[in-house]
Each structure stands twice: as C-alpha cells, then as structure tokens.
C-alpha cells in the first residue's frame, strides 16, 4: 500500500506527440514514476495521474515530442508565487528546508 502514489485524476498537463517520437527511450529512462512505456518502438503515456510534472522527459526528448507545463508541485511554492506575483517558486534562500 505504500506505493499508492497517484495524485489528482486527469490534471497533469503531459502531452506526447507520437508522430515526432523516434523511440530513443530517454523519456522512459528519466521518469521517476513510470508514467511512460515503450510500445512498438514509440513512447506511450500509461499512468498520467502519476505524472508529477517534473519536466525531465520533455527536457530530454531530442525531438521535442513531449510537452508538459512543469513547475514545483508544492503549496508553499504556489503561495510564494502568488505573494510575489511570479511563477510558483520555492524559497530556496535556505537550501536545507527547500523542497
């Protein structure tokens, strides 16, 4: 039961354009939550709700087949962003308590 690591349903902004995929496997290598798998030499999204929008897959895709609106999934970071009028950001002035 400790692996119950899916968050809210159908909210993640992850998108994959299969036509651009060259099947290099990078996205699968970097994903910390097994969101993607390789099927017929193409990447495929299988567990969207487990996606934490870290952006690793999109950043490492050589053909830009993946897009995701990435950012810090953290309430304090969002409040911080609202207060400062910026994008959500953690206050990393103290790295020990950061993230």
């Amino acid at each position, binding site marked *: 039961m400790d692996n119950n690591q899916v968050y809210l349903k159908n909210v993640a902004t992850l998108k994959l354009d299969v036509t651009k995929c060259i099947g290099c496997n990078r996205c699968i290598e970097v994903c910390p939550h097994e969101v993607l798998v390789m099927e017929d030499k193409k990447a495929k999204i299988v567990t969207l709700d487990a996606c934490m929008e870290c952006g*690793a897959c999109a950043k490492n895709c050589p053909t830009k087949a993946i897009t995701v609106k990435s950012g810090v999934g953290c309430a304090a970071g969002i409040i911080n962003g609202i207060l400062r009028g910026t994008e959500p950001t953690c206050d990393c002035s103290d790295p020990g308590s950061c993230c």
Partner: protein
Amino acid sequence: MNQQIPQVSSTLSFQDKLESTLVRWGIGRMDHTVEPGIYAVGNPNQDSPVLISANYKLSFDALRKELKNINAYIVVIDTKGINVWCAAGKGTFGTEEIVNRLKKVGLDQIVSHKTIIVPQLGAPGVAAHEVQQQTGFRVVYGPVRASDIPAFLKAGLKVSKEMRQVRFAFIDRLHLVPLELTISIKYLLLLIMTFLFVTAFSPTGLNWNPAINLLLAYLAGTVLGPLLLPWLPGRSFSVKGIFTAFIAISIAAHFNIIGVTKREMSAWLLIIPAISSFLLMNFTGSSTYTSLSGVQKEMKIAVPLQSTALVLGSILWIITKFI
C-alpha cells in the same frame, strides 16, 4: 596521474553526520556548500567512472559514502548549495553548468572515455543530447538513490527499473517529520498565545485546553498526516488532513478538553480540521509525487474553505468565552 585533483574519503566523519542531523531538524542555517570542481575517490585512473554531483554538502556526502572500495571521479557542479532535485527544477543543476564545468576541470584530459554519470533526479534540468553535442560526453542517468550506485557501476552502468523509481515510503516520510514539525512552529506558538490571552481575560479565567487542542491540530497535520499518508482516504492532501483532524478531535474528546458546550465543540470542529488540512496541504512541497497543476487545483478549493473555517471557528470560540 593528475596530482592536483583533491582526494575525498568515502567515510563520513562524526562532524559530517552531525551536520546532516542538524539540517534535518532545521537547526543552524549555515552554509552547506562544497567547492565546485573535480574530486578523486579511491585511486581513479583514466578509465574510471565520472559522477556528477550538486555542491550541496549533503548530496555530495550521500554520494561519496556509497563509494567504498570504488575508484571514481566526482565532478561537483555549482548549484549554489542546493540539492540536485531542487536545483534541477530551477535549472541551476543544468546543461549549461555541466558543460562549463566539464570544460573548466578539463575532463577530457583526465579520462580517456566519453561518459559521464548524472543523477537521474537532475534530469529535469539537463538535456542529455545537448550536453553530448557541446562536450562530446554521453550522459548516462544513474540511479535515483545513491545507495544503488555500487550495483549500477558493477552492472556496467545499467539501471534497473526499480532503481529509477522515486519511492515515498514510510521511512522517507519519517525523515521529513522533524522538518515539518519545526517549519511552522512559530505560527503555532503565536496562535496558542492568542488563544491563551483570550482565556486569561474571559470570565472563566486562564485555561490551557485550547493550547492542547491547537497542538493536537498541529501534530495531526505535521506528524500524523505525513506518516499515514497512503492510508488516508482521498487523493488531495487537504482532504487527507481532515481525516487526521478527526483523529486529533477524538483524542481531545477522549480527554474531555474539546469544550463543555456544544457551541465550543463546534468551534473546535472548525478550527482543528482547518489547521490540520492546511498543514498537510503544505506537505505537498516535501512529497515526491504531487504535480503543480494538481496542487493548484487543490488549493483553489481548499484555501478559501480552510481560511473560512479557521476564522469562523475562532470567532465562535471567542463568543463562547464571553457569553
């Protein structure tokens, strides 16, 4: 071989361990940085593996302590003293810094191979293909946990599925509890003082029960919530926080400190869940699987409800003290 490369030990000193404990409890907000550059562990030669690390001392220590009896190089990049994951999100653990640092230390003069090992948690900041284009070094993403590095090296830089997954097990959450406990403690103390102040001026006189109720609410959000996380109903953390609040309320009711009148009880039924739910919602910052879009969606609904409940509950409670 290259004599100028500083050697580091794979054994942590007492001081290293003390430092990590202090950080965990949020004590002593000093500087925990390592000088960027290349370091040697054991007796590396031109064929030895090269591992990239952040210059946050705890990340660096976590890595080197796993390298017992291994000969390797560690290239520490400048992440401004921030851990790999956080720095990758901000882009300071990123393509540009890796490219520049490899050039600065002259890695191609030190090793004869063309592979660098980058922690997988750094991937949100690093575009592997761009690093290769700009330096010639191929990026292999290493395991998520430093403890898997010996097995990964032995397997010829192969990462098993298991090594790629970020877990958020009981023990990981337990490690986060001290920080959760300390992080908002000043707000708790402020709230407790206000409530005590009110009782002191009320006709019934100074009463400690409100302080205990507030403390229970605080513990429900910062200790119970993180520990019981996967077993609490609901997907959103603010909902989970309402369930831990009910545990706190049951404890308070059991010891008869939740109030004597129905009205005072209803006040606490608003205040305790509001606090617990808000605090557990903040735990999304420490969790390893919540997404930005998800937390935003959750907050849009939860924050107005939490603040309303807290304000209404407090007003109701003050009224019971004076009427």
